[in-house]
C-alpha cells in the first residue's frame, strides 16, 4: 500500500501511523453536549466505500494528513495536510 504524502510524495504505508476517521480532527467545544463528545470520540460512520481518515507521516515529514480513500478497494482519491483543511 502506498500513500501520497502531500510533502514527500508517494510513500510506502509502513512510514505512516493511522489514527482513524477524519472527524477526530474536528474537536467540539469543551462545553458541548455529552452526546456531541460521544459522537466525536466514539461513534463512526465507518463507511464501506469512500472515507476520510487521518494518517501521520511518522517516519517521514511528520505531517498529519487527511486521506480520502475507498475502504473496499483501497483506492486513494486524495491526500491533503490537515493544516490546509478549511
Amino acid at each position: 500500500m502506498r500513500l501520497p504524502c502531500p510533502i514527500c510524495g508517494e510513500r510506502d504505508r509502513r512510514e505512516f501511523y493511522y489514527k482513524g476517521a477524519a472527524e477526530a480532527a474536528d474537536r467540539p467545544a469543551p462545553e458541548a453536549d455529552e452526546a456531541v463528545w460521544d459522537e466525536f470520540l466514539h461513534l463512526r460512520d465507518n463507511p464501506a466505500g469512500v472515507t476520510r481518515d487521518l494518517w501521520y507521516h511518522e517516519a517521514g515529514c511528520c505531517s498529519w494528513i487527511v486521506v480520502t480513500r475507498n475502504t473496499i478497494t483501497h483506492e486513494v482519491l486524495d491526500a491533503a495536510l490537515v493544516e490546509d483543511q478549511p
Partner: protein
Amino acid sequence: MADLIAKTPLTGLLPFATSDLTCSELEFASITSVAPFRGQEEVVSEALKAQIGANFPKPGRTTGRAHARVVWSGRGQALVLGAAVEPIKGAAITDQTDAWACVALDGPGARDVLARLVPLDLRDGVFARGHAARTLIGHMHAVLMRTGPDRYGIMVFRSMARTLAHELKSAMEAVAARG
C-alpha cells in the same frame, strides 16, 4: 581534574568495507535544526544564506556543500550540517550535534545495499544527487541524502548507532556474497 572526553556514536562500530563498498562514520562539527516560525520561511532562508551560504532547502532537497550542507528534515524543518549556526530571528534553533549517528555509504552497489533497508525509489531519475528524504532504514527513522553518484549519507538517532551499523553490515555482506 580531567576534561570530559568526547566519543562519537559509531566509535568502534565503523568503518566497515566490502570489496567495493565502504561504510564510515560521518562527523559534523555541528548539526543544528532550523525551523522557521509562521510566515518566516523567506526571512530565515535569507538569514541562512547570509550566515552559511546556503538557503533553506525545499522538501526532499539539500542545499550548500560538503562543509555547510542544509538538509531538509521534515515539515518546516532542516538540519544544518557542518557549519555552526548563530541564532536566527524567526526560527527555532536547536543543537542536534550529538543527536545523530551519521554514516557515509560509498561505492558501486551502495544503492543495492540501501534497497535492502530503505522503502524508497532510489533510481537516478527519482532520487538524484542533492536529494534527501525522511524515511525508514530498517525499522529506524532516518534522514537519507544522496551526495554523489554512488555516495549516500544516512542519519539515525544516536542511540541506534549499533543497530544501524549491524543492519548496514549485514546488507553489505549479503550484496557482496552475491558477487
